[in-house]
């Protein structure tokens, strides 16, 4: 199995990163408070969640001012289950299983994401070709390498990381309009310690003021050059939560993009702890049985 399809991205966190409750009225929030609200809501929405999504990746170009694929996208469909753990449920465990393409069906990825910046996230994969569960080195990266990706896509763990706000300087740059919506434009700059673990020297987020959805995120390298951009669209309510159902991240260095289409997303699912263990990767009978129970909760 190729290394490039391996990664430690956490699918439910990717989903959670674009989920924000409508109820928050936050006209006078500081930048830090806005980010804290975002973090809290990310965790809340990724907790006890069952999702099904389609992941498409392609080289892109610009035509008539619009981004578009320059080649046939590689499409994968997957199902993900996540749950919060630890103090205030600030850690997240999730498992993602590839449903398509057929050649990769059953490849599973188990991820533990820790809120504490001092703890490296952990990922295991079950690869039928190897016949065993394999730990994937994740950790931080140096400036020349890319953090682990989600099934070979441009979505990486760092892009979806939660917590660790104390390690950032957070500034509200302005209130502006993005995609026809009023947004806060917020800048986060990692401190020295965090910067050593991050590929980004600065991140700019455009947060929908009414729906608390990130409509756009810009990531900059240490030279101040924008190297990645994430765009959220198809903002709809799912289970009472505003969700950018179509999220696209563009690597502006490699001209490669990945789109995550959230086909289904269900929260409030009672996820047994045993499901978020290595057993789910290796024991297909257990996995399918438990998945059926989880799906049954939706109906």
């Amino acid at each position: 199995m190729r290394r490039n399809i391996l990664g430690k991205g956490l699918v439910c966190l990717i989903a959670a990163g674009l989920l924000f409750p409508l109820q928050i009225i936050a006209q006078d929030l500081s930048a830090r408070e806005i980010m804290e609200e975002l973090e809290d809501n990310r965790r809340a929405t990724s907790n006890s969640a069952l999702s099904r999504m389609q992941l498409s990746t392609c080289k892109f170009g610009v035509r008539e001012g619009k981004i578009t694929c320059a080649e046939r996208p590689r499409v994968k469909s997957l199902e993900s289950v996540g749950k919060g753990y630890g103090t205030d449920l600030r850690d997240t465990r999730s498992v993602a299983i590839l449903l398509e393409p057929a050649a990769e069906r059953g490849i599973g990825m188990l991820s533990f994401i820790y809120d504490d910046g001092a703890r490296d996230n952990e990922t295991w994969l079950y690869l039928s070709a190897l016949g065993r569960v394999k730990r994937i080195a994740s950790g931080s990266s140096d400036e020349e390498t890319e953090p682990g990706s989600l099934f070979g896509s441009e979505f990486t763990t760092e892009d979806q990381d939660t917590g660790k706000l104390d390690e950032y300087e957070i500034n509200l740059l302005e209130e502006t309009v993005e995609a026809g919506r009023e947004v806060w434009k917020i800048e986060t700059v990692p401190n020295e310690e965090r910067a050593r673990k991050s590929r980004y020297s600065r991140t700019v987020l455009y947060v929908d003021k009414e729906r608390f959805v990130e409509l756009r995120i810009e990531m900059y390298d240490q030279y101040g050059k924008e190297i990645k951009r994430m765009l959220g669209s198809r903002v709809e309510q799912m289970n009472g939560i505003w969700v950018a159902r179509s999220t696209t991240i563009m690597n502006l260095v490699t001209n490669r993009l990945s789109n995550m289409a959230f086909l289904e997303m269900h929260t409030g699912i009672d996820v047994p702890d045993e499901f978020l263990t290595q057993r789910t990767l290796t024991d297909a009978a257990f996995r399918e049985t438990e998945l059926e129970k989880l799906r049954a909760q939706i109906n």
Partner: protein
Amino acid sequence: MVLDDDVQFDADVDFSFDDDLFSAAFDEDSSASSASWLDNFTIKITQQFSGQVNNHSVEIPSLFSFPREAELETNRLGANIRYQNAFAPGWLLQASGQIRSYWQDDYQYEAEGDKIDIEYRVNEFFLQRSFDQHSVKFGRQTVVWGETTGNSVLDIINTTEFRDFNIIDIEEARLNQWLLVWDYFGEGSNFSSFLNIFPEFNPPAVRGSPFFFEPAFNLTDYDRDSGLQFEAGTKWRKSFEGSDISFMAAYLYENQMRFEDPISGIGDAVAQVNDFFLLGFSANRAVGKLLLNFDLAYSHGVQADSFSFPGTASLANPVNLKKDQIGTSFGFEYAISNEQSISLGIQAQKLLDEDEGLLSGQSLINDGVFGSWLVRYSNTLMNSDLVISSTLQGDLNANSLLAMLGVDYTVNDNWAVGGQIISITSNDASPLIFFDEDVRLAATLSYSF
């Protein structure tokens, strides 16, 4: 939608995103729930050609030499079928198998008297029942214990068959066996145990294949009437933050049978098997983008003389002694980037008290520290459609080197093509001397659905 591949993005110029680009995912979602029994099948059809392309002669110093001419070695059409069905809560049936048809110029075609030969083989075939914290699987399956990829000293539960040189990885050469496997998933740690009441052994080289050499005596299977043979073992595994460790113990038979000359000097070779005890430990440690692997094996009562290099068989070994052996395999895997990765695995083994029991003038084939090393590199290009990989494999004494360069191109979700070039260099201290200076080319065309 399609643009030139060299279109460059200017981050300073604002742009909008074509929201309809991936809208088909939502449009087609209504059909996603229409499951079919065919969904349980994965089928891959492959046509493969491979051959030795370098005209040369192989010199066996002070013995003889023989010419090695370019020739097609394989020309075969095959189908791999995999079936997985969780047909009831807690139950799973999984099976996989292959069918091969050997066409003209394939060595098996020629071994069959220039007739098309068709071969069937069941790989996996097991029934699984999972309940509470237990899982029981019975049927043909594999047990993988090693952490080191490619050449672990602990990956010795299942037998292997290196039939062709285009298979040099142990994962691909592994054969399933009839096993009863019981897994217990506890709080924070797992036990996995297996029982095998029909131990199998590495199959002899197929007549006509590159590994086949005409033996002085007919090689037969082991005589199973001499008593009950079984293998059993258990492994305990626990995960810590950043690391997984395992301890294991097993009673096993060596996968490679030992053949001795018939006592009367005529008739069939006498197949001998050897049982031994294995104690093992494995661990990994993730450090940033680096994953370190370590396996340790202590074997009590293994045959002193047996080749460990893939594809070789021990024939009429002069020394018939049981010894204890300690072995380790260790290495690392490093993700250079999303597209590139590199791994290294080193396997080293040593017989303990190796001179004990030897007659004057006798020496062991595996003298001192012996083993192999393996380096793999892969690079994915063109949105993962193109994968370039290379493997270098050699023995620790630098007597042989096997280099492989592979290119795989995915045409679309169904079609894929691949090519390999494999070069072998060896001196007369390695059994690979018979393939010294060989260069092999292989090409495959596959259709998956």
